């Protein structure tokens, strides 16, 4: 037997009958512990688990439509009127007050971030050498290969074929790993709710766009700083604008490649790092973890091999011990 040590029997007890018992015990282990049958059984269970897991994985394979949508934000156009904030709260049935409240400039005094009751916020970054300030609308970036989707263990975050990253509260367990994963950290959480908190973020007005309407913020923007459309066309448009006005823009469309690309794209008149945009490589943060994870668990090969290896070690060492004990017992017993 390969059981836990028999430490309830007194020491002398073990010593008196120990060798014989131990040899029996070890021999039994050698024979039974990792019989082929057991091993096959276990491998079978693992393989079944693997099959389900990989089936689940296959269904999540990124299927991005060629005509997936996005929004282009031209920061050189935005005047910081914050009408988009109001429209967003209105469309998402969040507290919004009067439209005239948007004229309150004091909110610009501190840098704000999206919260559970403001899915989008506009910040002001002072201009260089007395130039006009830049206003930056922020919201979930709707990544092409979203870290939050990759992180969520129950599939509550999903990248739709249409381009948006949407959240399904009915699956969510509230672990907030999606927030840890998001490179922009724009997802917010309803901490004040005791029982039914949700992760709150821009859903790219999924309900409106599916009816053929524009996202609320885009529809509201009085200066057309926001353009909704196919992502590939937006990129073309962005590069056209840069090419036609090389003095007006830096030659960089933020979101084209950042973190594997995003559905929200930004144009600006100065480097994005100056505006507080995070510097991200061309790969999604999810790329690396998925590679590590799938590398280790591919086909459950590593765990199964480890199981086999440990079994073999156990079998060998116990067989050897059994042998030694048998020899000893022979010598001791007349």
């Amino acid at each position, binding site marked *: *037997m*390969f*059981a*836990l*040590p028999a*430490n*309830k*029997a*007194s020491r002398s007890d073990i010593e008196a009958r120990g060798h014989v018992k131990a040899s029996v015990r070890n021999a039994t*282990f050698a024979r*039974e*512990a*990792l019989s082929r049958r*057991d091993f096959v059984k*276990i491998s079978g269970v693992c393989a079944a688990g693997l099959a*389900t*897991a*990989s089936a*689940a994985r296959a269904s*999540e394979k990124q299927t991005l439509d060629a005509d997936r949508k996005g929004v282009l934000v031209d920061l050189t156009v935005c005047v910081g009127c914050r009408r988009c904030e109001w429209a967003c709260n209105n469309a998402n049935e969040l507290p919004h007050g009067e439209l005239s409240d948007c004229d309150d400039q004091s909110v610009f005094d501190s*840098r704000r971030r999206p919260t559970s009751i403001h899915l989008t916020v506009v910040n002001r970054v002072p201009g260089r050498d007395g130039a006009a300030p830049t206003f930056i609308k922020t919201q979930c970036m709707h990544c092409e290969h979203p870290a939050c989707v990759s992180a*969520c*263990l*129950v*599939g509550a975050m999903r990248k739709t074929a249409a381009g948006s990253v949407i959240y399904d509260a009915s699956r*969510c*367990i*509230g*672990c*907030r*790993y999606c*927030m*840890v*994963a998001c*490179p922009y*950290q724009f997802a*917010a*959480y*309803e*901490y004040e*709710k*005791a*029982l039914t*908190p949700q992760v709150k973020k821009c859903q790219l007005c999924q309900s409106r766009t599916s009816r053929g309407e524009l996202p609320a913020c885009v529809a509201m923007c009085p200066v057309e700083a926001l353009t909704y459309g196919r992502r590939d066309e937006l990129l073309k448009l962005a590069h056209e604008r840069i090419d036609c006005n090389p003095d007006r823009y830096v030659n960089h469309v933020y979101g084209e490649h950042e973190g594997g690309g995003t559905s929200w794209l930004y144009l600006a008149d100065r480097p994005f790092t100056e505006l507080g945009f995070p510097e991200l490589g061309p790969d999604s943060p*999810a790329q*690396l*973890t*998925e590679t*590590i*994870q799938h590398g*280790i*668990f591919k086909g459950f090969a590593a*765990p199964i091999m*480890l*199981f086999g290896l*440990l079994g073999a070690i*156990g079998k060998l*060492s*116990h067989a*050897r011990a059994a042998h030694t004990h048998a020899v000893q017992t022979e010598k001791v017993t007349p």
Partner: protein
Amino acid sequence: MTRQHSIDASRPRFFTPGVWVVVAIALIGAAALLARFIFGLGRVTNLDNGYPWGIWIAIDVACGVALAAGGFTTAFVAHLTNREEFHPLVRPALLTAMIGYTFVALGVMTDLGRFWAMWHVMLPWMWQGNSVLFEVAICVMTYVTVLYIEFLPIVCERFIGRVRLPGALRVLNGPIDRLLRALDAALGRVMSVFIILGVVLSCMHQSSLGTLMVISGAKLHPLWQTPMLPMFFLLSAFAVGFSMVIFESLLASNSLRFKPETDLLARLARFIPILLGIYTIAKVIDLLNRGAGFHLLDGSRASVLFIIEFGLGVVAPFIILMVDRWRHSARGLFAAASLVIAGVVMNRLDVFLLAYTPTIETRPYFPAPAEFAVTAGFIAMIVLIYRFIVLNFPVIERLEEVRA
């Protein structure tokens, strides 16, 4: 195998003045826990959108999992490489792992905003195979079950031949006893599979715990952020597993007043410097490889944290355990084990909290009183349960001798 085991009058009492203090901490923790479930995370914690994870994840879960590693490291050494001499250490380590992981699960549940939906993790149509957290969750759940199965023989041993239900229930004594005997026999036959499974599951989730923070990218300081995190976590789990066994064994012999098994522990301690050595080499190569080493000299908070973590938790115990005389003294062993434990705790805290900077810094996170209370309360409960089981079940061999 004889089943005689007498719980006689000489056994240590459960309640001592110190234990009452622990009970008080546990009660305060329970009250804070209640407040969390009534008022929600927002009212009792300092978590926010910048710091979605606080000490409940960093200490209760991340450190908890690491410090419960004694279970699988001892199981490996004692059972799989079949070293009889280490068998006395297996049961206490198993017990620590079992209680530890139970509280890891409780810690997770406390932190989950929608805890009532926790079972979604078990529904195949909810599974998201790309998620590292999914892998950790499934592994930990399976491993807790395995730990309980591994503990069952101890329960059988405690009650076989000694089921004495009072009054009318007496008729059940016979059947229950037969049931326990059957269970014990059946378990004996399959236990090897569970022990191996336990080691495999541990290796899987101990390493994945490290993979967990890789996705946080630049938010984790470059001194820690590396694709090698899973390997570092696994190596340090091995090292801290052995250290916990030594630490607890010395603590138990002190508190329950029997002679420490210094020789045995010294033999177990030999593994630690080997592991720390491999860890150090890997760490240096990784830092050089990623060109992150220069952060060590920039005098930032992160560099200080790293130097303390590495100096105290890796270098110092390595030196102590390399000196034969120190390794064979209870004091040297205790110091080295404590340092490794402190180092691993600090490492998990750094990775999950202290070296983590949100993209948009809101306000720095400092745990709220209720967060401290819950964490301290959990630790107190672990101590109480451990003490209760050790005093009532055949777990520590020397204790039996003290009683006899």
